[in-house]
């Protein structure tokens, strides 16, 4: 009888590394949705999100022989995703990359603030509204929130995946949650 450890992400990745393609299918099934939405919520366009998503998984496939269990697989996966996203920001617009690196020092884009009446009017459902709130967050805070919600990462894992300190990760996540809570209260 196989234990839970045999079905952990890390065990599956090691099985795939050893040549078990079915293990990859399981691993992929677990993380495909979360990783795809993580990309989509940040680059906004589905075609771009699919491209980034594909790149990350291809990276996992190609680097399988170098995989070592040094952290949870999901931390490894989202670290790859974070790095790919940074490259994407740099390729699309230099200002986006700067904005991403500068945390929340840069003001939010005009016309995208959640407290503006038209934003609330356009959002007919709570889900749609929270996505608008999410869009309005500074990129680092948005990423911290998505790493938590879609990746299931804790604060220390968010810090590791984003390459920042624990305190910085905690701060980003706290600000993100605070702003989203405020926005949701207004919606209600």
């Amino acid at each position, binding site marked *: 009888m196989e234990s839970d450890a045999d079905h952990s992400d890390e065990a599956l990745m090691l099985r795939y590394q050893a040549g078990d*393609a079915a293990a990859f299918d399981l691993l992929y*099934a*677990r993380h495909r949705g*979360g990783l*795809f939405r993580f990309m989509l919520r940040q680059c906004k366009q589905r075609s771009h999100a699919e491209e980034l998503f594909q790149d990350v*998984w291809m990276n996992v496939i190609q680097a399988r022989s170098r995989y070592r269990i040094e952290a949870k697989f999901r931390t490894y996966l989202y670290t790859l995703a974070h790095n790919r996203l940074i490259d994407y920001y740099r390729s699309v617009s230099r200002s986006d990359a700067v904005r991403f690196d500068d945390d929340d020092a840069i003001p939010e884009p005009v016309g995208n603030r959640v407290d503006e009446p038209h934003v609330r009017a356009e959002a007919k459902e709570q889900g749609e509204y929270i996505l608008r709130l999410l869009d309005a967050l500074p990129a680092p805070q948005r990423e911290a929130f998505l790493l938590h919600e879609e990746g299931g*990462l804790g604060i220390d894992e968010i810090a590791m995946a984003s390459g920042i300190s624990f305190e910085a990760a905690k701060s980003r996540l706290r600000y993100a949650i605070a702003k*989203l809570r405020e926005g949701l209260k207004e919606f209600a």
Partner: protein
Amino acid sequence: MSRPSDKTPSSKSIGHSLDVPDADIVALSKAYGETKDLEPAKGLDDFLKAAARRAVNAKPQSLKKTEWRRWTTPVAIAATVVLTVSVGMLSLEKKNEIRIADATPYAAPPPVAPMLKPMAPSNTDSASAAAPAGVTIAKSTVAEPASDVSANVASDKALMRAPVVATAKLRAASPHEEAALADDSPAAWLKRIEVLYEDGKRKEASKELAKFKQRYPKYPLPEKLKNES
């Protein structure tokens, strides 16, 4: 498709760490959860799974390649050793052939009389003409190949072989051969001329005698030949 990882992480622990009421965190996660219906296209799923399968299936092939590569170094070393030994053996064989080829002409040496020619005129002292034949021969055999080579300097091959020829001739100058060479001494020459006269070959004998006198003008002739001249 099942999505075990799509479950929201423990909101309670995050809320505690962030000093945010757990209820708020749960409510936020629930609101966001409504948006978790977007997934990648089926075609992309299929593409990535196929790529993952291909990468794993390609593994045995790359292993074979690695195994083959493992043998390349020993095979290359073995080939180099075989080649080196073959070339070495060939060159040794070739050297032996050259030595045999060089030694062969000496087995049937050309007439030695001409080789002695330079010696006689330089020996003004008649006593030295009677010097031990071995010494004379040894000197002339060393000197002669050099003159032969200078005569045939057009051939590089001959030039290269010259020292070998000289050495071979020196090596082959045994007492038996010296005796054979001694037969071509002035005395032996005169003896042959005498025989020619005795055989009635006077014309040929006179010709030889004239040659002898020209070569050895001071050499004392036997009485028989004095009368003939």
